[in-house]
């Protein structure tokens, strides 16, 4: 359902991503791993269209999205989280999640100005939908709290929840376990599986934690300095000589 072909991105002299090709099947959990600076985040940013693609194409659900504007991506069913958390800091958890309902709105500025009954109905409906996600990720206690007062682990969850509120078909996660302690990471692996199985969301995940990858992913792509060096199941990839040497820096 999702495929990138010979994707490349250069920043000045640096080639951050070099001719990377892979495809993700419907219902799959696909991981990308690689040492720091390998170009993993850059791949996600290219898919989100935050960066312009230098070469190559991106296909999603049978359509070419290589040149779609960044705000189109969510509407087409791709949601994402960020490596360094990009939430709306001054707002409550609830408000953060409600913003994700924006793409599903059926009202316009004029009905909003008057808060017509259909806006009111839509708002209540959005709230009801959010409650399912809040329950799934057990965020009930934090509903009314502002983001900046929450611990890091909870923020990561809120960001995940916000991505889910977009009702995506494909979810991009950028290092979901970074900054979490072992128990939180454990919980995360269950949630990722739940999201995948129960909500039927395909997941493309950038991750460092080999354990987490081993537990949840179907396949792994390893990048080093922008180059794809291995692709296969977690077990195959773990023992691949190129991967070992990429991580040991030889």
């Amino acid at each position, binding site marked *: 359902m999702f495929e990138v072909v010979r994707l490349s991105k250069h920043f000045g002299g640096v080639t951050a991503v070099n001719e990377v090709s892979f495809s993700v099947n419907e219902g799959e959990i696909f991981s990308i791993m690689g040492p720091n600076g390998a170009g993993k985040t850059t791949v996600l940013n290219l898919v*989100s269209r935050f960066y312009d693609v230098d070469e190559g194409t991106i296909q999603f659900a049978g359509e070419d999205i290589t040149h779609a504007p960044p*705000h189109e991506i969510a509407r087409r069913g791709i949601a994402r989280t*960020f490596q360094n958390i990009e939430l709306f800091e001054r*707002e409550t958890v609830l408000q953060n999640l409600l913003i994700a309902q*924006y793409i599903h709105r059926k009202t316009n500025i004029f009905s909003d100005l008057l808060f017509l009954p259909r806006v009111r109905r839509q708002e209540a409906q959005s709230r009801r939908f959010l409650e399912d996600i809040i329950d799934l990720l057990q965020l009930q206690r934090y509903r009314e709290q502002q983001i900046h007062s929450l611990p890091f682990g909870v923020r990561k969850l809120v960001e995940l929840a916000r991505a889910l509120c977009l009702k995506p078909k494909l979810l991009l996660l950028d290092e979901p376990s970074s900054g979490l302690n072992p128990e939180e990471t454990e919980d995360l692996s269950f949630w990722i599986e739940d999201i995948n199985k129960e909500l039927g969301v395909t997941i493309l995940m950038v991750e460092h934690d080999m354990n987490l990858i081993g537990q949840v992913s179907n396949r792994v792509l390893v990048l080093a300095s922008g180059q794809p060096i291995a692709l296969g199941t977690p077990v195959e990839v773990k023992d691949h000589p190129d991967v070992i040497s990429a991580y040991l820096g030889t």
Partner: protein
Amino acid sequence: MRFVLKTDYHRDSGLFRDRVQFSWYAALFIFVLCLPIVSGTYVESQLTTVFMWSIAGAGLMILVGYTGLISLGHAAFLSVGAYTHAIMLDLGVPMFVSIPLAMVLCSALGVVVSIAALRMTGIYLAIATLAFAMIVEKIVKNWSAVTGGNAGFKVAPPELFGWELDSTAYYYFCLLVLTVVMLCVSNLLRAPTGRAFIAVRDSEISAQAMGINLLKTKALAFAVSAALTGLAGTLLGYQWHYLFPDSFSMLTSIQLLMLVIIGGLGSMSGVVFGAIFITLLPDGIATVREWLPDSIGNLPGLEPLTFGFLLILVLIFEPLGINGRWQKMRLFFSQFPLYRNKTLKRQKSFLRTERVH
């Protein structure tokens, strides 16, 4: 302490937090409704002015406080609104047609500015709007065939369906307009459109990831903001009787910005606080002057001096303005023995640095 119990989802999107808050607003509304009966014309006209500045402030607040876009040129919209309206009145167009037309023109102009400002953010946008306002000001000044130039332009008195509004009627008219504006803006802010504004303010990157079209949202914010400011311009024109280019200078733009900052960025009550503040400050200074020894009291320029000082003090000590201070006081009393100083920890304000090291 008071807890708000929520029993259904509509509670989250209500205009008021609970019955108590609603009662307070209702009491306030009844108070301003009855005021002209007991007060003199002075209080009445001061309050009318507060209403008008509140409308202009609401316009700027949407842009600066809720969308995070800075305009140093909002006097231009005030000016375009006021002149368009006055010129149409002069041509015999009735008020209930010319005010909406002036608002439409202003919002179209706002969209043009926002499109020109395409990818500008932060300081560049501020400077671009300043340049835009300067150009508008010079055009108004030099195009005397239409605007009367420096000689001024007379505004016909307010007239609704053949009935000329006296100052008390005008007070109620402005109050009505302000109430409608406040209701509409509050509606907007609790609906998807307003949330998109806030998202753009807090994180453009996140907003885009949420499917929000930055350009369209900014243009929309500019349009609403310009329309409201233009509306305030039409009303101010009535109050001033004569329009002069100098009434809409860069200093007016800055005064409007002071209004929203001193009132408290990111809150609609802040707008009213700010409007009260800038309307009353000149009087306050006049009173203080009388107490001061003549050598100081008679100096011109005491007013801008106080403005400048207060602005600096607010920015350093209370970046959330009067509204921020008020919220803290309320919290203090409602949680009296439990209040801790850190409850409302100071957060860094709206626009983050744009430079990446």
